[in-house]
């Protein structure tokens, strides 16, 4: 063996080096300048982001007299759930005094099929574009992407005419179709990127195994696409739930979604503006997408990385 030693037990004295001097981990201060800057910035920014939510919640828990007195940031002296009850079940628009509750179920009835249909169509499109490239597919895709930039207002009128011609105007299915159409560009892009980032060999293996277009889609691709489906679901649930324009143009009062009801309640000023009711209604309306988002936030970030960053 050479005269150089290996892995001998610790503590052996060494020659030629000072025995003291830095040893072990570099000391780190919890309050280093870096940390103060880092967390300071984050906390300040977080406060900015939380402020509106805080104000909404606090206000919705105050009574009107207290609101008139004053400070929107001060916590409620006396917590009341009256505004929430009112916003949910008895706020009036015209003669309808059933608050948001009716809109809630309408929104559910609109959102669920729209989300399912739009994601179903877009995922199949994305899959066809990524794996079964046929002639002209790219052209349609580019048109679709450009479509993502077209302001909805431009399309309202032509769609009214198209829906009238196919007899779906004012019906729920009509609105579902509209949502599917406008969800298509960005979802198709997401799915296409995601499916192209999956190894091509997987697709080839399945073809050698004899699976066809739908076989590969349902049995190979779908089970592997959870992250991107989560992203698509979040985007669509928030998008469709929050939609106002289509909801108001393509439905009728008994099928108004929640956002339209919210707008009605907020804009139906009876006497003084009941800010607490408005805020409660606002929170209630935002609750569904918020919950969806909080529940699946982690998957969302992961899916975004898979669908939007690559490809």
């Amino acid at each position, binding site marked *: 063996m050479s005269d150089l030693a290996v892995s001998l037990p610790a503590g052996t004295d060494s020659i030629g080096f000072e025995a003291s001097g830095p040893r072990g981990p570099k000391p780190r201060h919890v309050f280093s300048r870096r940390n103060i800057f880092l967390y300071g910035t984050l906390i300040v920014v977080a406060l900015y982001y939380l402020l509106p939510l805080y104000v909404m919640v606090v206000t919705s828990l105050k009574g009107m007299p207290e609101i008139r007195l004053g400070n929107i940031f001060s916590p409620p002296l006396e917590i009341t759930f009256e505004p929430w009850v009112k916003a949910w079940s008895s706020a009036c628009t*015209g003669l309808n005094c059933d608050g948001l509750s009716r809109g809630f179920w309408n929104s559910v009835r609109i959102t669920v099929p729209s989300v399912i249909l739009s994601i179903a169509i877009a995922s199949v499109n994305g899959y066809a574009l990524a794996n079964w490239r046929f002639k002209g597919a790219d052209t349609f895709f580019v048109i679709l992407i450009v479509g993502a930039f077209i302001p909805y207002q431009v399309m309202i009128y032509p769609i009214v005419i198209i829906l009238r011609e196919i007899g779906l*105007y004012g019906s729920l299915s009509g609105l579902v179709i509209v949502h599917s159409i406008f969800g298509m560009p960005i979802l198709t892009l997401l799915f296409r990127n995601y499916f192209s980032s999956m190894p091509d060999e997987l697709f080839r293996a399945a073809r050698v195994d004899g699976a066809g277009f739908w076989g590969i889609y349902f049995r190979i691709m779908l089970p592997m696409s959870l992250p991107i489906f989560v992203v698509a679901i979040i985007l669509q649930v928030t998008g469709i739930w929050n939609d106002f324009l289509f909801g108001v143009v393509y439905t009728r009062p008994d099928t108004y979604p929640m956002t339209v009801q919210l707008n009605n309640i907020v*804009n139906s000023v*009876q006497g003084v503006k009941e800010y607490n009711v408005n805020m409660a209604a606002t929170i209630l309306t935002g609750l569904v997408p918020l919950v969806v988002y909080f529940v699946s936030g982690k998957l969302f970030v992961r899916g975004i990385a898979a669908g939007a960053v690559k490809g």
Partner: protein
Amino acid sequence: TDLEVTHWWTSGGEAAAVAEFAKAFDATGNHWVDGAIAGSGGTARPIMISRITGGDPMGATQFNHGRQAEELVQAGLMRDLTDLATRDRWAEIVQPKSLLDGCTLDGKIYCVPVNIHSWQWLWLSNAAFEKAGVPVPKNWNEYVAAAPALEKAGIIPLALGGQPWQSSGAFDVLLTAVGGTDAFLKVYRDKDADFAAGPEVAKVFKAADDARKMAKNTNVQDWNQATNLVISGNAGGQIMGDWAQGEFQVAGQTAGKDYTCLPGLGLNEVIATGGDAFYFPLLQDAEKSKAQEALAETLLDPNTQVAFNLKKGSLPVRGDIDLKAANDCMKKGLDILAKGSVMPWTDQLLSQDTQKQKEDLFSEFFAKPDMTVEEAQKRFADIVASAD
């Protein structure tokens, strides 16, 4: 039969008023399905029109009578009510006659007017003037003169909501009051652009400039929030149509005691025969069509008229009914009506397109202190020149 009725009456007074219609209609054995759309006519009308043109019409819908539904009628989407009108002798009961003209196209009647709305009112808060230590003004000029005192007392002299139609309406009121009825008609009926660019209208713009200065601290959007400023004494007054009265009423205030109303800004006491009307889209369903007739009758029923207009603060469309319960301000209105000092309003005279341009102009004018009166008048004359 269920009949869906769309309208944009969602403020407190309005909602209470429309409830009267619903009650009366339900009493006929039908059912009023309320389709209130909040915001303003501006928000609601596109939705109504989309639904009618989109093939999903409601049973009946509110419009301002005049030219808003003109094209829908021309396109044959609206129901012809002439037979019903002849049977129920509308021509005789509707007062003033000009109201029914707004519903008539090519000799056929397409709508049921339900009230008369006049824009030409100045609403003043007695409490505010008391606080400022000046007497409640009798007309616009006194009011302008009192503005500095109000301001000193921390009171906004004039409440003016941010929505464009409010600025535009306020100007039209100033035009009738300061310029006179003839000037109004010359500009809007005859579309005389030279006149609109002339010195008489310049006077009106001068008044509008005063109003702009007086209103500069109002930070509300909705008209009834502005009204609320007056009710609470935070603002001295507001130029607003008679519907504002409903808000005073809901707030439990009494005309003459808590607030003062000056028709025609106290300068030119006339009443414009604008107002609301119901149109009935053409429906396939025979049952619904029958219900439409029942609704039309209900709307003109004397009792309903009284109940509705008392709540709404507007004037009834029939002259043959007794409004004992009417308050001070309404009585003033009824008197003017009785005197026959009536005039048409912009809804009847101008297309929505021109109205919208006017709104754009005046909302800009009232919001932008550095826009000169001359520039505004020039642009106004341009709009008048291209108006239809």
